[in-house]
């Protein structure tokens, strides 16, 4: 009887390999001179991880609470295009016959 909890889905395995390769690139090729901050070891891994968290935090934590609105927020405006609003323009005052 197979123990299903032991069988890791293949997608996680592949993903793990990608991460390994990502880390592995640090050790391949000529060492880059440490000029800028992005030349540090695993900088991009950290930047990617933290960046994702920071952006999500920024979006969900700061922008969203302030600016969220229901999807039909502007909808009452749609009704205005319906021409149902009365305009102040009416036909000119009627003339009586025989004038002028």
């Amino acid at each position, binding site marked *: 009887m197979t123990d299903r909890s032991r069988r890791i889905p293949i997608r996680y395995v592949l*993903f793990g390999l*990608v*991460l390994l*390769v*990502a*880390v592995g*690139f*640090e050790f*391949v*090729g*000529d060492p*880059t001179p440490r000029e*800028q*901050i*992005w030349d540090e070891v*695993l*900088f*991009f*891994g*950290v*930047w*990617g*991880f*933290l*960046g*994702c*968290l*920071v*952006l*999500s935090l*920024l*979006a*969900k934590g700061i*922008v*969203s609470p302030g*600016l*969220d*609105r*229901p*999807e039909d*927020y*502007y909808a*009452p*405006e*749609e009704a*205005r*295009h319906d021409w149902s*609003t009365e*305009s*102040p*323009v*009416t036909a*000119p*005052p009627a003339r*009586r*016959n*025989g*004038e*002028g």
Partner: protein
Amino acid sequence: MFGSIPPGLFFVALALVLPFLPRQSRAWAFLVAPVLSLVHLSGLETGTTATWQLATFELEPLRVDRLANVFGWILSIITLLGGIFALHLKDTSQQVAALLYAGSALGVVYAGDLFTLFFFWEIMAFGSAWLIWARRTPEAYAAGLRYIYVHLFGGAVLLGGILWQMAETGSLRFEAFDLDGPGILILVGFFLNAAAVPLHAWIADAYPRATITGAVFMSALTSKTAVYTLARGFPGWEVVMWVGVIMAVYGVTYAILSNDMRRVLAYHIVSQVGFMVAGIGIGTEYTLNGASAHAFTNILEKSLLFMATGAIIHATGVSRMSHLGGLYKKLPVLFWLYMIPALSISSAPFLGGFLSKPMTISGAEYATVPSVVLLMHLASVGTLLSVGLKLPYFTWFTKPRGLAEGEERTVAPIPWNMYAAIGLGGAGLIFLGLWRWPLYNLLPYEVVFDPYETKNLKKAFQLIGFATLAFLVIAARLKPKPKIQLDFEWFYRAPSALVWKWVVHPVVGVFVWAERVSWELARALVPVGFDPVSVIRSGRPGPTSPSGETASTGFRVTMTAMVMIAALAFAIILFWFVLLR
């Protein structure tokens, strides 16, 4: 191959002919224009120009150079793909509009003078607006109106700048501008079409409401044509770079939050164009190459993304992630077809996007402050997050939302041509990823960047890998909610009802009141004129009978007589003044 014809003319000519072709053939006939354009482009030498006289001006409707060709090629290719995607379409008006739209975009790209540019710029606005109206829902009508107003306004600003420029320099040449008065107006005009913050809100308003096939064209044409014009007109200005950086981060933030799939993509356009704009602002050959290459791959990727999401809307009738989920069972192929452009746009290795955006960022490393580079990388992460992870995850996976208990989602069949178009595009992205020379040889300057250098591969793998890891950790927090976020559109949408009430109504009211007062005055004076004697006697106009005639006191003066007396008096007074010198 066809001499010096602007490639856009094939599209315009076909647009005029199309309504007269047999109904069944029109969708296929559509493809003739981009094919002819591509054939023509393959023979068009750089340096070709054509001139045309308009009154006192010499126009240059065709100006071929390397920068224009990058855009000319991809715009033609994407129109072809879009046409394939739309083979099932029966709405001739959309086909004509799309042809005019695409032809005008090419017209702008190959314009050597500002008149030609503006001429086609306006046609683009109307053609694209039609693709929104063609959806025929109430929101689409309203959104289309807002779209056209915004773009006509942008066009007006652009026109002001162009004519001011003409008045000052006497020239209509479309070359790099200074940031003087006219230049700023022209810049604003270009920025609006490029969806630069804060002139970008129209894109998130309009694109989700366009037709399924229309949005594909719109995503490719308007904003990227504006990128071309910015590249031509304003390379190297630092303010442009900063606008681009802001766009990149701003767009991606809103993309993360948006619920409607096409709204996510629309905000994402703001972000991607931001990269290009930043590259233009930095202005070195390296980053200009990057911006052009990015435009090329991005047009392809964005259109494919709009195609895929459009196919979902076509099949399910749903466009919001809060009401989707679990689609993998029903639409597995579409998932993989979506992921190719999604990964490409996130600059995953072995795909087209890996060649382009990293070039811009790499160029930025050499040319500007580190914070710009870091922000660009951050925005890249956001790209992956919003388009590459969140959208597919909540659309194809997770439990289905928006359905009643036990209800199965109905999925209509997706036409073969949709799959074909997305597949072809995806294949193109893979091909480019593996063989980048067709693109690199097209770029304006010599290419120094090597995407497959170790450090570039490292960047890509680490960014994508670890960002995905983070996503998996917080995925539940990012669940889509049926909400929108207020953006700059608030400034013209919220007050519009108020503007109507407080500005238009009073102005109209004043005029109407003035008219009414004059008529009442005239009407009051008429009985006096009829019978002035009775007014003198009794201080009031004479009694009026029901028919409106005043009772006679025997001293009636007719209207005619009154007018003649008045005219005579007037003439005498004038003669007097003349004679008296």
